[in-house]
């Protein structure tokens, strides 16, 4: 079977000017077109165009997404067969098929892409693999992120592409690039979507959807099969990205999700690795040994304790305000921190210790002189000037809620007033609060609408829970060290060499 360019363009043109069509008709046309191209692909009818470098010039990915994607897919397949390589040179960055793939992923039509989920995902994965193979993960990271946000701006359904993105960002050390996706709440898993209400009328894929849930179910192909390991790795990698950006509170939240994962038997290595980081990040953010999240089973909590002994001991020394012991613990377990890729975090814990010592002093004293602070809070012999510089940077970065007071006499020591924050004009606090509340309000709105959708699903069928349980084919615990599973050897203290 052969097909001409005129036939291909005519078939794709049926999707143009769709605003005049009803949703039903548009849906039918896209489905027909997808079936047509799948047939062409299966009968090798597109092979005549396999080496036609200009064929895709006849298609606009924003209007002819289905046609563009299938033709590109066919050309990639033929390049693979020709070179007997899984990643032929044409697919590598700057290759002619790479350029086409980038053009598609930046411009595809998000509605048409819903009908070709599997092909869309495979192209995204190919781009990610090619970028990594060329040691240019940065190229893949941006492309994958923008494609994800183009397809589903809410990113509320967890997919295998989420994991691909965070891995690429960690490898490329482009941490902020992941934030537009990481900062969005994940509310659903594809395996749990669209089965309970399968008897109910499914909305058309091309209709305006309130939630991406409607088009990102398991059958959409937009995600590959997921296991519990993927889920854990995503949140561990996400936590590491937040750590690199020193967003400790968010890092703690992500690590807490991994730590509190329900288990049937033993802990996975990923969970243990997350718990180690959880302890260190807890010290950095809260200045104390944070217990595992309340959802963690007592059985798991006990196992964590026994598997992370050096970390617990370190945290206890921190809490007891014992700088000598803290230093001794840091030195004694150097190889542990190094093996776990936590050396940078531990170094930051040492710095945070002094901040929290000052905060603790503030619970006893209303004010302290720099001379007192240099003696009581700072471990090394420090001049008053240096002590003021250290303390002032803590106050100015809002890490320490206090105010400094120079005295009239030049010889007198500078005073740190630890109870002075309440005297600040309320206006600036209120403004900060306003911004925070506004952000929280937005998050709540998103969560509430997704919660309503979940309630709706749960209400449709008594079998939903059974179904959901069947679909949760969580893989068992891993035997390989988690950092190797994640495939990263990242020292999260990106500022380590600047201390």
């Amino acid at each position, binding site marked *: 079977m052969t097909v001409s360019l005129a036939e291909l363009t005519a078939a794709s043109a049926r999707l143009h000017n769709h605003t005049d069509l009803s949703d039903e008709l548009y849906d039918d046309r896209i489905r027909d077109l997808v079936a047509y191209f799948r047939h062409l692909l299966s009968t090798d009818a597109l092979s005549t165009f396999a080496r036609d470098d200009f064929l895709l010039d006849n298609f606009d990915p924003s209007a002819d997404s289905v046609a563009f994607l299938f033709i590109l897919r066919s050309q990639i397949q033929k390049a693979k067969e020709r070179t007997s390589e899984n990643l032929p040179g044409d697919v590598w*960055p700057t290759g002619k098929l790479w350029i086409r793939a980038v053009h598609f992923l930046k411009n595809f039509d998000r509605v048409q892409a819903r009908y070709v989920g599997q092909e869309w995902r495979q192209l995204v994965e190919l781009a990610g693999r090619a970028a990594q193979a060329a040691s240019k993960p*940065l190229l893949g990271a941006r492309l994958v992120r923008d494609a994800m946000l183009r397809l589903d701006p809410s990113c509320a359904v967890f997919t295998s592409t989420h994991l691909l993105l965070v891995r690429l960002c960690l490898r490329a050390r482009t941490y902020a690039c992941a934030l537009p996706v990481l900062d969005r709440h994940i509310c659903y898993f594809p395996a749990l979507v669209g089965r309970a209400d399968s008897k109910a009328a499914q909305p058309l894929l091309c209709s305006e959807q309130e939630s991406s849930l409607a088009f990102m179910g398991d059958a959409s192909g937009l995600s590959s099969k997921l296991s519990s390991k993927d889920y854990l790795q995503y949140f561990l990698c996400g936590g590491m990205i937040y750590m690199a950006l020193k967003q400790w509170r968010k890092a703690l939240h992500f690590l807490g999700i991994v730590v509190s994962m329900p288990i049937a038997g033993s802990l996975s290595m990923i969970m243990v690795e997350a718990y180690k980081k959880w302890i260190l990040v807890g010290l950095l953010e809260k200045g104390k040994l944070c217990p595992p999240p309340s959802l963690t089973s007592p059985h798991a909590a006990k196992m964590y304790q026994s598997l992370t002994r050096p970390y617990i001991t370190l945290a206890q020394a921190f809490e007891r305000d014992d700088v000598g012991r803290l230093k001794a613990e840091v030195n004694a377990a150097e190889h542990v921190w190094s093996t776990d890729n936590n050396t940078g975090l531990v170094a930051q814990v040492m710095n945070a210790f002094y901040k929290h010592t000052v905060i603790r002093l503030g619970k006893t004293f209303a004010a302290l002189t720099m001379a007192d602070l240099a003696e009581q809070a700072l471990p090394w012999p420090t001049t008053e000037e240096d002590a003021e510089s250290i303390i002032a940077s803590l106050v*100015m970065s809002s890490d320490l809620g206090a105010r400094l*007071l120079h005295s009239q006499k030049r010889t007198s020591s500078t005073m740190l007033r630890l109870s002075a924050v309440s005297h600040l004009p309320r206006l*600036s606090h209120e403004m900060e609060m306003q911004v925070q509340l*506004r952000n929280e309000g937005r998050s*709540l709105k998103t969560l509430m609408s997704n919660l309503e959708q979940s309630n709706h699903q749960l209400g449709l069928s008594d079998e939903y829970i059974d179904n959901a349980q069947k679909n949760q084919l969580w893989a068992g615990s891993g035997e390989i060290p988690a950092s190797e599973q994640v495939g990263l050897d990242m020292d999260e203290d*990106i*500022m380590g060499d600047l201390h």
Partner: protein
Amino acid sequence: MGLPPLSTAQLDNLTTSNLSPSQLFETLSHYESEACLATAGPGSTDPHMLSSFYSSFFIVHLLTDQVPEARALTQRMPETLRSQDPSLQNCMTLLRALWQTQHAQVYRILRDSPWPETLQPLVRRYESFFQDKTLIAVSSSYEAIRPAVAAMYLGLDEQAAEKGDPSIIQKFTAVGWTWDAEAELLLPKPIPTAATDSQSSNRIHEAMGMLGGRGS
């Protein structure tokens, strides 16, 4: 988005433009892929253009207050460029001073280091940004401060400030601080930072309503 290809001329246009820091960041982010590809083939690289790009992008990270990500950028740069290019060396020194909160050193690097002519507009913008940010931080961190220390934070003449130079004192009183001539101390007044959204109060009301209404 139809951006022209990355070139020295395009970078010059951007660094001298009136684009906001976030717009500059967005635009230069798009160009990072091109810069990344430009380093792919041997002999295909224009070191001057790459130096200009990475230096500009670095300063724009600082202008958008992304110090950890600026550090990550220095790790993404081609190693040879980072270790040999004078402009990028300046960036590394600046990053170190910022990380160690050495204000005087930051101003020294910004003012005295040999920055390329094309980068000067961005460097000046960052100096002004850093000064404003520090002023806001000092205003809410000190109840009373000696003029010389305040001058050090803002990159002003410390010796003149110590002698009570009226022109320097006036810079502080102009932003609401009080000068206690007898005690020779400046009394800072916290500077409220503007809320970014004029409708924030309504949104807070909505958020509070949502919090209150869901409990029942």
